[in-house]
Structures are given as structure tokens and as C-alpha cells.
């Protein structure tokens, strides 16, 4: 095994369904032993990339290499990768043990041997006593672990996980995230994890590829993705962001270009209270939303933009304030990120024609939260320099 070979290398990978390019020229190297996440909204092409790696779909053009070997034209059963399916895809007519032993069975391993190995794999996912049950008699989390055991018992080089935690409730999902991470460390194999949950991707991954409309919008470590997003799309999709258009940047930041600022980087106080920050702006408190550990404050700045501010509740200074009271916000220059690309979220500014027509005016909703441009600046499309 050569150390410098990437576990997976995609070159110019394209998959078209009719006129639509679900995957559009993706180049990507995934290192061995990496926990790699493909993050994006539904329809961004991340699952299609996964299916192309698994061999369930044939690319329209481009290649898939596994440890230096071109496997583009190989059938799924001829590739050393295994998949954990979104719906788990456990065989309902087989016992849990037979499900886990299936990969060994079709490889001609004797019944005794494969049952022993399957039993061991079940123990690693803490389901040792469930071998005789049918998948239908297990809970969602247990089925999830059976699917993991079934996919890993055949020792694949790469494990593909297609939104495996999507069907689980929050508590179980958090628990399974820890288990996944442990399992990956234990087995030392490459995990490629598809998810639309940005928090899950940030928590688990060594590196993340953010997908948008069939392309990789940004590739980097979780910290890079979160702290240094390259486009309004990434800034808005991963976490919550306040995005300043070119004109607003000139007013608020004193320089041109599109910028973003995370809500938790902003401090807030009464108008008269002196904020010890490099930059300040005045505005009116539009909404106060209590979210347990923190409070989300929505401020309409006088400059004409609605800003989201996230404050830890222990430091909350405007708890007495109500909608309509005057506040001032402040932030440091180093927390403001200049965005290289101008790709916005497809549902709003991105869908505006690039030929100079006004973009969607007013505010947008990203991650269920109000952010974005001012209602008084309707002719400032974020897509004026769209790719």
C-alpha cells in the first residue's frame, strides 16, 4: 500500500440526468484514514458523488480511482468500498447475524467462520445479543449499528455513509456521532460521510467539501469552512451569517466587496453604553429570541440592514430591552470575512438573473433565520459578479 496514494481520487467527475448536471466536473482527493464529509443542501449533488464512488451510477464523464486504481467501469461488487444506506437497507427476511454475515457469505466464507466474524462485528457495535432478531424488531439506532457492522465486517478500504443519522432523533444522533468517530478511529479506514446537517459535518470531519449545484463550493477543515467561508453560500449554509453587500460594506466597513460576520462575534449594548470594539453601528432592536444557552437578537441597523446577534446568556446586557429600543452593536475588524466568490443561496439572490435585474429585495431566510440585505436596498444583487 503506497502512502501517497489518495484513498479516493475523483477527476473531472460529471453526471448528467437529462439536461441537468447533478455533478459538474468534480475534482477531489480524499486521503487514507480521513473522515471526510460532503455537505450541501438537497439536490447539490453530494449523494450522487457518493453513488458514483460506490458504483451505483456510471459517470457521464470523469474517473473514480480507489488507491490509485481506476475503478470507474467496475461494478459495485468489484469495488473495495462499502455503503451505509440512508434507509439502512437491511435484508428484512434475514436475521441480524445473517445480515452482517452477508458480505462474507457471497465471498464463499464458511457458515461457521462468517457467523463468528459477524458476531464479533456485532459486539463492536454493542449488539452482541441481537444476532437472532430480525431487522424489523430493532429500533432505528440499532438498525443503524447493524448497517455499520454489515458494511465494515468485509474490511472495505473506504466506507461511504449516506446521511446515516438522518432518521434518528437528536439525542440518538449525538450519541451515534460519537460512536461513528470512535469506530472510524478504531478501524482506521477512510469514511466519506454525506450530510446536509452542517453541525454534524463540523463535529465529525477532518475535512469538509461544501457542495452547491453539483460543484464543490469550498474544501477545507471545519475551522476553515466556518471561520473563512469563501462565498455567501457557504457563509449562510454553514451556520448563520450576516452578509454585507458591496454597498453596505462601504457604509459599515469602509471598504468594498461582499463580507460576512458571524452573529456570535458581535457585541451589543445600549446606545449610550460604550462598546470597546473597533467598529460600532446603531440600530433598533426588532426581535429578541430566547434559545436557552443564548439569546438571539435581531437588530435593524440604521444603515439599512437586518443583523442577527447571538449573545451568551451569562453576558446578556440588554435583557431588559424590548422590541423597538435603540441599541448599538460592535465588532472587531478581524472577525469580518471578505468573501472571494459571490455565489449565494440558490433559493434567493442566486436565482435572480445576472443581467442586471434587481435581485430579490428584502431579507432572506437561511437556516430558518432572518438575515441578509436591507429592504431599502433593492437594486444591489449579490450575484452581480456571478460565476
Amino acid at each position: 500500500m503506497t502512502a501517497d496514494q489518495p484513498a479516493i481520487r475523483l477527476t473531472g467527475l460529471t453526471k448528467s440526468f437529462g439536461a441537468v448536471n447533478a455533478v459538474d466536473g468534480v475534482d477531489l482527493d480524499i486521503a487514507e484514514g480521513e473522515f471526510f464529509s460532503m455537505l450541501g443542501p438537497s439536490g447539490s449533488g453530494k449523494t450522487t458523488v457518493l453513488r458514483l464512488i460506490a458504483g451505483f451510477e456510471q459517470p457521464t464523464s470523469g474517473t473514480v480511482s480507489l488507491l490509485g486504481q481506476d475503478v470507474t467501469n467496475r461494478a459495485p461488487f468489484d469495488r473495495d468500498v462499502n455503503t451505509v444506506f440512508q434507509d439502512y437497507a437491511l435484508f428484512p427476511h434475514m436475521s441480524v447475524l445473517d445480515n452482517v454475515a452477508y458480505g462474507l457469505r457471497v465471498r464463499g466464507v464458511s457458515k461457521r467462520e462468517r457467523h463468528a466474524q459477524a458476531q464479533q462485528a456485532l459486539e463492536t457495535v454493542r449488539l452482541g445479543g441481537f444476532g437472532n432478531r430480525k431487522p424489523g424488531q430493532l429500533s432505528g439506532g440499532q438498525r443503524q449499528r447493524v448497517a455499520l457492522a454489515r458494511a465494515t465486517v468485509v474490511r472495505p478500504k473506504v466506507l461511504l455513509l449516506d446521511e446515516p443519522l438522518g432518521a434518528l432523533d437528536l439525542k440518538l444522533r449525538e450519541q451515534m456521532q460519537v460512536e461513528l468517530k470512535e469506530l472510524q478511529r478504531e478501524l482506521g479506514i477512510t469514511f466519506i460521510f454525506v450530510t446536509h446537517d452542517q453541525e454534524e459535518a463540523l463535529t465529525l470531519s477532518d475535512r469538509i467539501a461544501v457542495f452547491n449545484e453539483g460543484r464543490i463550493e469550498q474544501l477545507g477543515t471545519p475551522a476553515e469552512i466556518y471561520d473563512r467561508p469563501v462565498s455567501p453560500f457557504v457563509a449562510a449554509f454553514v451556520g448563520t451569517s450576516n452578509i454585507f453587500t458591496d454597498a453596505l460594506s462601504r457604509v459599515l466597513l469602509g471598504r468594498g466587496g461582499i463580507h460576512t460576520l458571524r452573529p456570535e462575534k458581535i457585541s451589543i449594548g445600549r446606545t449610550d453604553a460604550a462598546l470597546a470594539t473597533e467598529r460600532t453601528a446603531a440600530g433598533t432592536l426588532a426581535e429578541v429570541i430566547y434559545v436557552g444557552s443564548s439569546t438571539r437578537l435581531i437588530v435593524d441597523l440604521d444603515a439599512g440592514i437586518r443583523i442577527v446577534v447571538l449573545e451568551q446568556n451569562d453576558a446578556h446586557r440588554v435583557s431588559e430591552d424590548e422590541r423597538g429600543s435603540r441599541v448599538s452593536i460592535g465588532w472587531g475588524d478581524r472577525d469580518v470575512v471578505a468573501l472571494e466568490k459571490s455565489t449565494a443561496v440558490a433559493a434567493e439572490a442566486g436565482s435572480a438573473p445576472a443581467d442586471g435585474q434587481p435581485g430579490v429585495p428584502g431579507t432572506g431566510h437561511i437556516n430558518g433565520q432572518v438575515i441578509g440585505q436591507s429592504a431599502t436596498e433593492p437594486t444591489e444583487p449579490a450575484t452581480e459578479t456571478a460565476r
Partner: protein
Amino acid sequence: MTVDAPAQPELRAVVPPHRDTIARRGSVLLSKHPRLRLTLLLSAPLFWLGLVYIAALAALLITALWTVDTFTGTISQTWTLDNIITVLTGSLYQTVTVRTVGVAVLVTVIDIAVALPIAFYMAKVASPRWQRILVIAVLMPLWASYLVKAYAWRSVLSQDGIYEWLVAPFGGHTPGYGLPATIITLSYLWLPYVILPIYAGLERVPDSLLEASGDLGGKTGATLRLVVLPMIWPAIIAGSIFSFSLSLGDYITVNIVGGANQMLGNLVYTNVGAANNLPLAAAIALIPIVIIFGYLAVVRRTGALENL
């Protein structure tokens, strides 16, 4: 979006208050009395099933235990097992029973063999558009009369028919009228009844299971043998019950394309008509019923009946 847009109460729809109608009172009564609901729901079908269906079968069994006065031709209601014994021991009845079961088994095997690939193509390969077209194509023969289709096959299989014309250049010949023609025609007639349950069974097998099998290293053969077949087994059994029981009772097709061969249905028919021996006909009719019950008892063990 402005946060504090003025409220517009006039936009709220006005919900009319409940009116006390007879229909409403009836609904209230029914929702309060589940037993009354059940009675109203089931009385008509239960009456049909009980009186018309079960009672008719019971009458058949009773008739088989009566006898016919050979001089007057009238049924005398004296209890006897003679008819049953005749049917069980008579060499004619034994031969015809074996022949009928043989035909039914062959028709079933042929139908399953033909239906499996067609149903698989319909459920797993064809595009949704083609899927609809194929379902209609499979159902279309059912719109034509049974007799027309049987006579069509008689024409196809005749000495100067289309089959002879088709295979003669390759040195083949039409099987003519006889048991092979009967089996071919019955296979054709019952094919839709076998395709549809298998198609429905395959539809219920998620594509992800086939992908999972391939993903885990299962080649096409292993996937079919270890995943697809066990999962659609109940559907295959359901289809086989249709083709097997329909073949077992048939007597028209064998009359049209079967040459001189007789099946159990023909014996029943002649005993009802020409021989005017209703009790014996009833006794013969019990044979397929017993066979079907035996078959159902066997397939019940496969769990197939829970999926019918």
C-alpha cells in the same frame, strides 16, 4: 418581510357553526357505537359469503353423498359413500386426476418462469412511463373473452396455422391439438394472474436492498438467489395459487384445443349434463377442492398466505 405588519383580521375565514342535521345525528350515533358500525359494515358481505358461498359448497358436499335412481333419473336422498368410493378407486378418475394435476403443475411452472423476468423488468428496470404501459399490456388480454382467446389458440395451433408457418422453415411442427396445446393455451390465459402478484411483490423490494447486496459483493446471481427470491416468494406462491387452481377447474380450453383428452372439469360437465348424475359430478368436483386445500395447507407453512 417586516416583523410587525399590521394584522388583517378580515382575511380570516368564517367557519359556519355546526347544524343539527339527520346525517350529522347518524354520524354521531355511529361514532358512539362501534358494534353498530361493524354490523352495518359486515352484514351484507357476510350474508353473501355465508349463504351463497359456503352454503353452496356445503350443498355440493351433501349432494355427493346422495345417489341417483338409475331408472327414473331422479335424485334419491339416501346417504351413501358410493360416489366417493367410485371416484377414489375408479381407474378413469385416477388417470384424469393425475393428468389434470400434471397439466396444472406444468402450466404453473411455465407461467412463473415467464412471469419472473417480465415482472422484474416491469418493476426494476423500466422507466415509470414504460411501467404503466406494460401493466396495461399485461392486463389487456383480460379484456378479451376467454372463449375468443381459446379459439384464437386453436387457430394458431392448427395444421395450417400461424405456428406451423412460423416453425416449419426450421423443421418444427405444430403440436396439434392435445395436452401440449392445452398447456400452452392455459399458460397464456393465466399469465396475467401470475405476473401481477409477482410484479407487486417486486415493487415492494426496495432498490436499496439490491444495491446493498451488490455493494457487499453479491453478484447478480447471488442477489437474485439470496435477496430477491426469498423476498418475493410469497408473491410467487400467490401467483401459483391462481394459475394452479384455475387450471385445475378448467374444462373449456381442453375441449377446444385438447383433442380427445379430458380433465376433471369435463367429467363433471358430462356427469351433470349427458349422464344426469349430479351426485357423481359433485363427488368428482370434490377432487380439485381437496387438492387445492392440500396445496393451501402446504403453502400456508411458507407464510405466503399472510401476504396474499
